[in-house]
């Protein structure tokens, strides 16, 4: 116990640096995933055949491949074909693309999940389709989208732990490097685990409570 605390204090600065990297990667990947995901959702909902077909294929293929392989392929593999991304960017592209497929499906489900009657009611009032989307569909889809979105966000944070394999110094990397140094893997992994778990609790408990409050205020 004593030695563990000692080791924790000794390595804490490195871990905190890792936390910073983890959060930056999460934030950037999330932004990519949300933006690209929304486009994917629109493409899949659109009446333009090729667009829909392309988006569907992209979603079905990318989400069937493990994140780790996407990551390796983007980082180590793509240069073979002349595209070279720096580690953090490769991580953001990989995680962003993978999570865009998941968020895209969430968005699509949210939009489709809005009762058909809502669209009809808005159309029957003479609203143009842009207004229907902005004022009626999206605000309602938002609340359906929120819970699965935070759920995926906590998955995203966890999946950033894979980037140490391409030399990006995130939290998991620090735990790994520290235990290669002091040969106390359990202590180091536990410290990282506690930090990851705090993120998880914040997302799954606090955010969930906030969501519930928002829902209740409306209901």
């Amino acid at each position, binding site marked *: 116990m004593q030695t563990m605390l000692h080791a924790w204090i000794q390595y804490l600065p490195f871990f905190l640096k890792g936390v910073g990297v983890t959060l930056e990667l999460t934030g950037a990947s999330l932004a990519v995933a949300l933006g690209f995901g929304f486009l994917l959702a629109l493409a899949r909902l659109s009446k333009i055949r090729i667009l829909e077909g392309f988006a569907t294929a992209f979603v079905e293929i990318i989400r069937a491949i493990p994140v780790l392989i996407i990551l390796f392929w983007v980082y180590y593999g793509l240069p073979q074909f002349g595209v070279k991304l720096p580690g953090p960017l490769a991580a953001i592209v990989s995680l962003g693309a993978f999570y865009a497929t998941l968020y895209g499906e969430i968005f699509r489900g949210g939009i489709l999940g809005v009762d058909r009657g809502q669209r009809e009611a808005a159309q029957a009032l003479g609203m143009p389709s842009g207004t229907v989307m902005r004022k009626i569909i999206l605000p309602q889809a938002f609340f359906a989208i929120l819970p699965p979105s935070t759920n995926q966000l906590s998955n995203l944070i966890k999946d950033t732990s894979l980037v140490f394999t391409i030399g990006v110094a995130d939290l998991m*990397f620090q735990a790994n490097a520290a235990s290669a140094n002091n040969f106390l893997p359990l202590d180091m992994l536990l410290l990282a685990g506690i930090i990851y778990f705090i993120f998880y609790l914040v997302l799954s408990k606090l955010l969930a409570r906030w969501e519930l409050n928002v829902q209740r205020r409306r209901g």
Partner: protein
Amino acid sequence: GCGSSAGASNTLLGQVKSTHQLIIAESAFAPQDYQNPQTKQWTGYDVDILRGFAKSLGAKLKIDALPFSSSIQAVADKRADITIDIYKTANRAKVLSFSRPMLNYDDAIAVNSQSPGVTQDSVSALKGKTIAVVTGSAEVPEAQAVPGANVTQYGSVAESFLALSEGRVAADFQPDTDIAWAKRQNPSLHIKILGAVPASISPPIQSLRGYFGVPKGSYSQSFLNKLNAYLKTIAENGTEQKILDKYGMTSPVFLKGISSAPNS
């Protein structure tokens, strides 16, 4: 060996003899230990040396391939019996006992052969550059000693060379043998040796030798004695040089002073 006598299975030597198996914790460092792509057999000079040693004990090699950082841990944990040859550092000495030295290394700076990110093998030239190393290797503190360096750590030496060849990093600190071998095996890699890691940041020459690590303590002592004797023999009788020749390491500098070096 639950059934064998207590004395035998309580020591590493007893363990190896009774199970007829010597487990190496590998990490695919070429030319020390790597998988031949054609035959999928493990090969390399460490593998050849240890295979000979295992044979002398009536055992066969079993290979556990892990990321480098975990491979040392695996031996410390007695999950595997012996590391590949590694540098002797204070940290490692806390968890491992070391054999006598078996090879001289030089830590070298590798750079991209087409557009070198560093042009001089001096600390000042390296200052502030991105330097690749392997997680858990002795080169990590060397690179970290360069002021302002951005140290990028990879899971394997091959991955670090790839990064260098693709120009992701300015320099890569590795044993010179590894750089030379990688260049020879894969001429398409854009890497070359720039020079030795500056003396001011590289460790003393003693520790720049290769040592086999085994689990720390009296558990390994009898095994180490046998190993040391074997290593001394092959260094003296030219067997080791023959093995090295297979990997293009014909220069006498690799074994200079090895046969007369003291046991650790």
